[in-house]
């Protein structure tokens, strides 16, 4: 097991988070270099995710590293019944780092236990996706100049949305105030509210996406409300438009407000928001490149700032 692996955002400390953000800032200023010259990185996508794979592979390429791997499990021996353990042990013979995405939850954690090569979790089912959290944190840090004392409003699917859960956990060190805005069926699970209470994190909860909440926010984090999450389709029809952000709703919001969304969006952010300078979701995705360069160099024990 390598201690440089990154499986879950809750595995790393406040100082490590801040170090990763500083690395990301460095890479934004210096995106191209040869610091991975001679290194080989495996991108093992047992489940396809073009967006995440391209981001990781670009991160490696821009730092001069080489890539081997596959983009879906059908092209591998997994489809012939090989165990994950055997696949990981085989690949570990060839590479310095494994970036993996898997449809099974806990797959990346298990992979770290069968190899000494560092492993980066690029998503394991509905469980963890720490590079998404790092790019969210970097986007917040960059736009607000700090992570401390911010009011963050989370909207949409707070029950199943793993990005909001991971972001909540990661923000525990920075004295945030959260507003949880969701329909009854998709409210923030009790275990995360309990996490807030035990960590002294202030939060409010409402089914109403009101102007007061919007105007108090430094960050509005929008998520997708998916029809298949509802047991009652009538309920979905009733609420689907209640959690859509329109440009007119931003009239009296803070000048420094930024709107984030993990993408892809469907209709939870109206297109009329896109041209508002407060819309940040496209730049947010671009920050993923720098966040992933930060995570990759940390995993390989390379410090670009030295």
């Amino acid at each position: 097991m390598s201690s440089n692996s990154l499986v879950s955002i809750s595995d790393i400390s406040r100082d490590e988070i801040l170090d990763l953000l500083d690395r990301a800032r460095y890479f934004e200023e210096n995106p191209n270099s040869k610091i991975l010259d001679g290194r080989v990185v495996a991108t093992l996508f047992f489940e396809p995710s073009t967006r995440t794979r391209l981001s990781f592979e670009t991160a490696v390429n821009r730092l001069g590293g080489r890539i081997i791997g596959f983009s879906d499990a059908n092209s591998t021996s997994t489809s012939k019944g090989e165990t994950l353990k055997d696949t990981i042990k085989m690949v570990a013979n060839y590479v310095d780092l494994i970036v993996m995405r898997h449809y099974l939850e806990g797959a990346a954690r298990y992979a770290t236990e069968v190899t000494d090569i560092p492993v980066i979790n690029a998503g394991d089912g509905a469980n963890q996706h720490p590079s998404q959290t790092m790019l969210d944190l970097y986007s917040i840090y960059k736009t607000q100049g700090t992570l401390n004392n911010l009011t963050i409003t989370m909207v949409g699917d707070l029950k199943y949305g793993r990005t909001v859960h991971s972001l909540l956990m990661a923000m525990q060190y920075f004295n945030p105030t959260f507003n949880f805005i969701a329909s009854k069926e998709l409210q923030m699970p009790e275990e995360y509210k309990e996490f807030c209470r035990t960590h002294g994190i202030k939060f409010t909860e409402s089914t109403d996406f009101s102007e007061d909440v919007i105007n108090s926010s430094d960050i509005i984090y929008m998520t997708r409300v998916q029809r298949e999450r509802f047991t009652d389709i009538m309920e979905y029809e009733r609420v689907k438009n209640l959690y859509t952000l329109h440009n007119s709703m931003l009239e009296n919001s803070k000048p420094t407000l930024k709107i984030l969304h993990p993408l892809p969006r469907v209709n939870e952010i109206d297109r009329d928001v896109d041209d508002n300078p407060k819309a940040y979701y496209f730049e947010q995705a671009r920050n993923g490149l720098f966040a992933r360069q930060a995570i990759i160099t940390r995993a390989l024990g390379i410090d670009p700032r030295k």
Partner: protein
Amino acid sequence: MSTTKKELAVAALRNGTVIDRIPSTALFQAVRLLGLEHSKCHVTIGNNLHSGKIGTKGIIKIADTEFPEEVLNRIALIAPNAVVNTIRDFEVVDKRPVRLPDTLTRIVKCDNPKCISNNEPMATKFEVVAHDPVVIRCHYCNHTVAGTDAQIL
């Protein structure tokens, strides 16, 4: 002490182990956890006995057997208040509560069908996140389950 002696005397044990204060609903799970289905020793099982503390309780007596601590502590998963009495020559020589270990390896099956531990030949692993009532979390997929609902392997 006198009530304990009276109950233990129901089937007086010369040497062995008596596990007391098991909630009635957890008794047969406890029997399984101890692997008693395969025991050749004299085993006495009592259930729905009156108990002031936990309503009704179960009790298990196993003759001529002493269990390693890690085996006994598995009982804590479903019966966090169980008490283990070690009997030698008709006397209770040791009496102590069970203690749940911080991690449970190869004891519980994860209830998440999409968990790696249900799809790969590997040991399951759970961490204890709360003690009374017991709540455990899968080391791999992070699903949590109450100790009493855990599927024991």
